[in-house]
């Protein structure tokens, strides 16, 4: 009996020791925050983190966003280390909410896709307008969507797909990712513009949607350029149109939808944010550090290798872009419902 009690106690004490760890951590943060407030008279140039910074990446290790974040953390100089924390799941909501609920003291920043935040807020999978409340730092990459078919497909170009879909409504299988995300938005805009009537199949991730197209279980693939490029260069995918304003530097021979006469643009900005209410001078310091890293040759090289189109938007431009997109995306949403 004695043994039983002792071991039970041991177990319980271990558990408490563990949970206590979490609490003391929080307490420590509060204290440090107090110290920082004392030193808040610093200017933008001189603000530097007092300890290592957590950069939350709401995707798993090894994905496009993770690699981008790691390229930047390796090339940024903030005096302290910037440590990537992969917190994935829930369609980025778990990681983003963690960032959203963090202390606005500059020691937590996050990578986020503003378009995804807007769409997720409008379709109620995010309860809060994260894109409005989080403080934008900058956007470093614009990854537009592209429409592809399998090399074994009978289709030849965008027009043949549109014509087929009009003649056979509901028969074309349109593979993409996410039922209510940014891809769906682009698809619906395309439908309004062209009169396409297909089945939008929302796969879990890009590789699943690609497999469906390779295996003949879907006809058309709509996905990010960066994710499709390797398969385009291997000849397995044939690019039909990019959903950009102008042609992609990676695919100079592929027309834009705009050139084909359909005004549809769709893509994702990979951007960095601070938690809500982060003081201005901290955000400015980050913007500067990111911009310095953006201009480095080795950053540009590494980003290009990932098939991502580097495009700089500072915090002012990014904020404007988010506000514009929030309005236009809401309009599309309303016209669909």
């Amino acid at each position, binding site marked *: 009996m004695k043994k039983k009690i002792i071991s039970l106690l041991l177990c319980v004490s271990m558990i408490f020791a563990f949970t206590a760890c979490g609490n003391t951590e929080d307490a420590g943060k509060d204290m440090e925050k107090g110290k920082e407030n004392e030193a808040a008279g610093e200017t933008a140039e001189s603000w530097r983190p007092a300890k290592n910074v957590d950069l939350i990446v709401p995707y798993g290790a090894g994905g496009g966003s993770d690699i981008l974040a790691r390229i930047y953390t390796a090339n940024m100089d903030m005096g302290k280390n910037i440590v990537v924390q992969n917190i994935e799941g*829930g369609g980025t909501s778990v990681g983003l909410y963690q960032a959203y609920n963090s202390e606005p003291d500059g020691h937590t920043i996050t990578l986020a896709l503003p378009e995804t935040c807007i769409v997720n807020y409008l379709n109620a999978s995010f309860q809060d307008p994260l894109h409005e409340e989080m403080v934008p730092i900058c956007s470093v990459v614009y990854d537009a969507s592209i429409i592809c078919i399998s090399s074994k497909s009978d289709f030849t170009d965008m027009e043949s797909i549109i014509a087929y879909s009009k003649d056979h409504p509901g028969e074309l299988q349109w593979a993409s990712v996410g039922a209510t995300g940014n891809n769906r938005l682009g698809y619906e805009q395309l439908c309004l513009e062209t009169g396409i009537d297909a089945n939008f199949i929302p796969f879990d991730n890009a590789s699943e949607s690609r497999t469906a197209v390779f295996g003949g279980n879907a006809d058309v693939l709509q996905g990010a350029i960066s994710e499709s490029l390797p398969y385009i260069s291997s000849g397995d995918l044939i690019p039909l149109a990019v959903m950009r304003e102008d042609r992609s530097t990676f695919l100079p021979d592929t027309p834009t939808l705009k050139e084909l006469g359909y005004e549809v643009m769709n893509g994702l900005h990979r951007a960095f944010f601070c938690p809500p209410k982060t003081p201005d001078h901290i955000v400015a310091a980050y913007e500067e550090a990111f911009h310095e890293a953006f201009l480095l040759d080795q950053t540009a090289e590494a980003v290009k290798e990932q098939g991502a189109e580097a495009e700089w938007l500072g915090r002012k431009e990014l904020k404007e872009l988010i506000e514009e997109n929030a309005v236009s995306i809401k309009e599309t949403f309303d016209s669909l419902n």
Partner: protein
Amino acid sequence: MDYLFHGVIQVFQPVTLVYLIMGVLGGVIFGAIPGLTAALGVTLMLPFTYSMTTGQSISMLMGIYVGGISGGLVASVLLNIPGTPASLVTTFDGAPMARQGRAAQALSLGVFASLIGGIISAAALCMIAPQLAKVALMFGSWEYFAMGIMGLSVVVALSSKNMIKGFISVIIGMLIAMIGLDPISAIPRFTFGFWQLNAGCDQLATLMGLFALSEVLSQINGIHQSREIREVGKVKLLPQKQDVAGKLRQFLSGSVIGTVVGILPGVGQATASLLSYNQARQTSKDPDSFGKGNPDGIIASESANNACCGGALIPMLTLGIPGDQVTAILIGGLVIHGLQPGPLLFTTSGDIVGTVFVSYIVSCVAMYFIMLLLMKVLIKVLKVPMNYLLPIILVMCMIGAFTSNNRIFDCWVLLLVGLMSYILTKCEFPLAPLVLGYVLGPTIETNLSLAIIASRGSILPLASRPIALGLLLMGLAMLLWPTIKSVIQKQKRRNL
């Protein structure tokens, strides 16, 4: 075969070999400790490999992968707690064998089965990877749905005592899997306002709660009773001839099932070993001895879960589609070195493909020897009093649950799930079917929804899918097999 030669050159460099062996050793230890898994090991090591050369980083990650999946066997046999979810099925027969004083036999057999499974899937990987990859392409949403349903029929094998309770367990498992954002419409389900639950209950925390915590609680219950004397038995490192002789069929079928399941994306080791175990049990002359310490159960489980690793590498290399959780992370490891797994990899970087092949084979062999060497030490765990061991296990599980997402929330998930499963075991609900529902639920749900979206609400296209129909019929046959069997036996008796 040219690339195999390049692979040998890459892997057989002193530094690379050291990384590989370190990886295997670390993986085995990670795998052997309940709460720390292969996936966790690879995730934690991944950022460190960014600065290595491509060959070194592949070798090390592959070592952790193989070691981690294999190491789980140790805890399964010795503690009745799966070291990793992959070796869950090994507990069914491994733990009873250990109780009967045959722990050493169970371990050496399991390690040997792991080696065979690894080698056979490696052979498939080297020789017919591109052809095998087509299997993955043949599977559309209907096929995955049908395979999930077929997998569920394993419940019959897992709950022979009380079928109703088995089915209830499956349903509970599927309900737990439904927590979080709906996979299609992204609407939160059963989250009760906790945004932390948007991604569902963390898999590691849930599985460790189910098996480790409930087992710890059950053992605490009996800790004051005079402990059964746990014989270590004579430790023989190599599996004995009489254990292995005549078991070729068991080794082969486990390996083949493992490889095929591995090729299918998103299915994973736990399902592979469950299917293999079910197959071994149903084709056995003595199915009732399964679950009571039948060595065939260990062979089925361990050969399948290791073969699954080789299988999972096939779609990863040829199509860029991860076959399981760990290969999904491995893809990231390759991408960071500027390599895009997929159809181009074989032509543009044949040496990398070769490195993956060779490092996988070398890891399997290294795993075999490292496990044999460690066995003498590890088996002493049996002599450690439970009142020291249990708190350590509990802490390790907590660390595992915490590390996978770096948050305390998942520790609470572990505790709650553990408490729930303890109550369920007390009410004599079998836990294995619960895992079945938990693991297969999302596959079934997502793919059924996708298939129905593609056909605009009709289930008729299922009839035009031979593979899917075949899988469903197989599931039905597995479900009805015990009934059919008893009818046949009655007939036989009547004829006598």
